[in-house]
């Protein structure tokens, strides 16, 4: 029984540490999370774990830990196999390659460690295999901040089939953004910005944004979707999304004070919003500028191209950690009864 874990060495290093107080997630901690996952996997019967490799030091640290394990004293781990068949490019392609290899090698669960950007890339590559996205990045509207041990138990229970996928996973919706022959898929939001270049990728000038589309919007969210979360929330587990037209705060109908990045609460002007039904293609009015997905500028537009956005219900199947562990509790999956002790108690 095989699972895959992909950890992005580059997550949590972008300019938001300079323009906001976004956290720094050290390489050593990412490696620790992988080890906590391995411990959790073993305890619920996962026998084989495929791990991504990188030049950022994560896989090297896990390998060192693996070699230093003391038989009999350290708990068991699944058999660890490092996916090192593809040359490392230092780009998002490394995540794509690793996830594809893991799926082809029979992984029944893909865990990804990173921010929204990493989850987006992993989701695009994992097909129908359940995805567990853990936060080690910046905005993290999609991946959850979860203790890796607990998340690993839940992921493992889904992977082994101890908790059925229908109970333990939720199908996410995604937004497809496309222009000419280029396309990107967002898990949380797509926006059009007047900023002309991809530049340092992150987007922290909301006054440049003209339109915003969200797959879901939670009142306690972070990132651009928090704008909608405080104005027109849209639950994660309903397929419908929301579309907003932004405007300069001076002239806008509403001004939302939104946490668009850690350490950055700014006024964002909104002129209009409406529910965004699944399947409806929306043309973006902006000419030139860029399209950002999940808070990162990804597609540069020429002055003549029209980008389109469409909400799609066929996103990744995501592990719902709380639901899985509630099911485990209800069915006693993580406990046993000790008959002898019970008999003694009764005799006394």
């Amino acid at each position: 029984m095989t699972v895959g874990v992909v950890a992005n060495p580059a997550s949590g290093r972008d300019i938001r540490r300079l323009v906001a107080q976004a956290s720094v997630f050290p390489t050593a901690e990412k490696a620790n999370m992988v080890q906590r996952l391995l411990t959790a996997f073993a305890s619920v019967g996962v026998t084989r774990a495929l791990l991504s490799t990188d030049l950022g030091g994560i896989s090297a640290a896990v390998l060192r830990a693996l070699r230093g394990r003391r038989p009999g004293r350290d708990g068991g781990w699944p058999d660890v196999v490092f996916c090192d068949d593809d040359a490392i490019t230092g780009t998002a392609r490394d995540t794509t390659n690793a996830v594809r290899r893991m799926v082809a090698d029979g992984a029944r669960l893909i865990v990804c460690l990173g921010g929204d950007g990493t989850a987006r890339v992993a989701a695009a590559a994992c097909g129908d295999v359940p995805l567990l996205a853990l936060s080690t990045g910046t905005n993290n509207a999609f991946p959850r901040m979860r203790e890796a041990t607990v998340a690993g138990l839940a992921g493992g229970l889904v992977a082994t089939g101890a908790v059925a996928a229908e109970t333990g996973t939720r199908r996410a919706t995604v937004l497809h953004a496309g222009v000419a022959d280029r396309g990107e898929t967002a898990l949380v939001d797509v926006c059009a910005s007047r900023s002309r270049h991809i530049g340092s990728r992150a987007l922290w000038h909301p006054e440049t944004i003209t339109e915003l589309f969200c797959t879901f919007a939670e009142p306690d969210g972070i990132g651009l979707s928090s704008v909608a979360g405080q104005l027109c929330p849209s639950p994660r587990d309903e397929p419908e999304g929301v579309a907003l037209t932004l405007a300069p705060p001076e002239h806008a109908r509403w001004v939302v004070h939104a946490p668009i990045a850690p350490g950055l609460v700014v006024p964002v002007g909104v002129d209009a919003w409406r529910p965004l039904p699944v399947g409806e293609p929306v043309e973006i009015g902006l000419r030139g500028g860029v399209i950002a997905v999940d808070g990162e500028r990804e597609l540069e537009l020429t002055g003549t191209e029209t980008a389109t956005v469409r909400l799609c219900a066929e996103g990744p199947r995501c592990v719902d950690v709380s639901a899985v562990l509630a099911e485990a509790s209800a069915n006693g999956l993580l406990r046993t009864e000790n008959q002898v002790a019970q008999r003694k108690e009764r005799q006394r």
Partner: protein
Amino acid sequence: MTDTLSTAVSHELDGNALLDAYRTMRTIRAFEERLHDEFATGEIPGFVHLYAGEEASATGVCLHLDDRDAIASTHRGHGHCIAKGVDVKAMMAEIYGRRTGSCHGKGGSMHIADLSKGMLGANGIVGGGPPLICGTALAAKQKGTGGVGVAFFGDGASNQGTTLEAMNLASVWQLPAIFVAENNGYAEATSSTWSVAADNIADRAAGFGMPGVIVDGFDFFAVHEAAAEAIQRAREGGGPTLIEVKFTRYFGHFEGDQQTYRAGEVAYARENLDCLKRFRARVTETGQVEAARLDAVDAQVADLIDAAVEEAKAAPKPTAADLETDVYIEY
């Protein structure tokens, strides 16, 4: 509703500024490629380390600087000099060891300096630059000029005690200092993935209580944007920043390096990542600059480099009588 790009981001550049940025990057590239050819003839004395491939870093950072600001450079310093406004012909003459050079022909490639331009010098000492800019940054802070100090240094230099001490001091004193770690993957033949313990140089910033970010060093706009934020923060009293720019150098460590330690990556970078190619594609796509204007810059730069080499070769060498000039200073 069709929206146009009427309001751009505050530090985005207009057409003329973009052309200036392109001219600087093209000048550095042409300067280095020409030196690569000329060095092979044996006419240039001493060591030469070329900056080709790394142009977006010096250019993206120095475009934000003015007369109040100083930079410290490295042994790979030609790009920093050009971007900070040092005269290209005087640089070429210096590299040829001529009296008309920036340092009267007595410094060579690794010691080009021009204090009148705030260029504190190329530096043969790996890790020699960061402490210097703590000095200029302290002076700027004390005098209240709003000036900043910028240290460019390599991945190898990032492991030097001097660099780490300078970052500590800059943070303790909240100096208007910017540390630009130019991670080109190697220190001589040693891979940075082997030699840099934290793997990302930027991660070390957290240990000094300053922000640390990584940017794509092949992308002028990425460097320019990150530098804008860091320099503005420093000018306004926000303290130091570490920016790690990642890229590949196009030539060997020094001219003559056989480069047996790497393969393939340079051809890939030149083809797919090159800062000049990407810049040209982007600004013409958006209609901000016409291709013909960029072509004109290419031609002007080629003429400038031709003239610089010709004049340098024709210029006189220092004589024995020059031995004691520029050695002592009277106060």
